[in-house]
């Protein structure tokens, strides 16, 4: 849930944008991080761990723990807590290892 009216800071969410998680549209607001905007829409699982395949979510929201890696606009392993949403942004969870051998000119 978005906090429409904050007890100290008042109304801060002005500019709505649409982001796509797994190709489904969700509402977010500019200046929110990707991880936070997904959480506002009830999505807490951002991926799974490589080895034990356990769910991962936002943990530090500071760019330190790397628990929030996602694929954002075609780039794998982006820290979603440090990336601000943009209108039309396409976001996918990181469910396994990225294809590191992918030809960078491919797309």
């Amino acid at each position, binding site marked *: 849930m978005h906090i429409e009216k*904050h007890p100290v800071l008042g109304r801060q969410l002005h500019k709505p944008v649409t982001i796509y998680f797994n190709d489904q549209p969700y509402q977010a607001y500019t*200046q*929110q*991080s990707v991880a*936070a905007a997904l*959480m506002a829409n009830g999505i*807490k699982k951002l991926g799974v761990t490589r080895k034990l395949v356990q769910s991962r979510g*936002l943990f530090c*929201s500071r760019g330190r723990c790397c628990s929030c890696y996602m694929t954002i606009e075609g780039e794998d392993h982006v820290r979603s807590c440090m990336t601000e949403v943009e209108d039309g942004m396409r976001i996918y969870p990181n469910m396994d290892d990225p294809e590191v051998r992918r030809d960078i000119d491919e797309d």
Partner: protein
Amino acid sequence: MKTDVLIIGGGPAGLSTAIETASRGLDVTIVDEASKLGGQLNQQTQALRPLPSLYESMRGFELANKLIEQIKDYNVRQLLNHRVVGFYADGSAGITDEENVFPVNAKKIIVASGAAEKAVAFPKWTLPGIMTIGAAQTLINRDFVMPGREAVIVGSSDFAMETAIQLMDVGIRVKAIIEKQSGALAKEQEKVRELSRSGIPFYFNSFIKEARGNGQVEQIDVALPDDVITLNVDLVCMDGGRAPILDVLYQLGCSFGFQEELGGWIPQYNNRFQTDREDVFIAGNAAGISTHGPLLLTGMIAGISASEELQAISALEAHEIREALWKELELLEDKEMHSGRVKHLEKFANPVLKDQFIY
């Protein structure tokens, strides 16, 4: 790119050091990986006290705005959404905008990289919905997002109590505060009383035995001294304390010393906040975990010292300002912390070990 002073980190310490150097005519560059200066101050809605005499009492985000406003008058280059990734053989910093890496050649470097929150481990503590108290605070006060509806807080420091109150203020139900010690750790006992009065149980001598949930936290078992209870929650905020962020200082090859009161291993520095790499200064939590007032003061001392070496201020004037700032630091800082700092300075003059790290 060339600059007189490169400041790594744009939080309170980085900004106060920027004001000291840039106001004396130096060319200053701040690099920060966030998209806004101010660091963790930006989501701190609590009143900060005590602050240095230069500042009236205010809330965290207000202080951030004030510091950002102050540097606008000076020659400060802001590299936001940028990170230092290493150093070249000639000593220049390698900085990335997440696409390219470029060198920045600085006469002096001031590291104000801050601190990171530590975790409290228990079985399945990595489930989504379990996060640091700082993360929960960031979500509600910076992103304006509810991190959950029903929460527990693990820990009872001032920061944990403050966050519990802020969570309640946005409508999150705090179901319990779980503390492994036998009493609340917060210095401001008023906050503890406020929380107890609103009916939140404090479980002392207690800890989370296990968390459970399908893809996210749904339930926790809490081990009380003589019972185990189960709580349904979708948010667990943990306060594991903080540790200085030191990556850059390892890369710079600074020598380190262990100082319990300041948060463990930290670089050695003298009373100018200068490390044993003469061109590298340190400020803020990276120089030892502390509270807001001292963070600003250490930034000011480091800034004065770097300005002195770059001849932007006379040695005499620098000496006098530094003395005054150290006096104020002693006043504002926790006694134990301050004596740890003084002990740490002594180690700089008489290093027990040099190059104690195996690279």
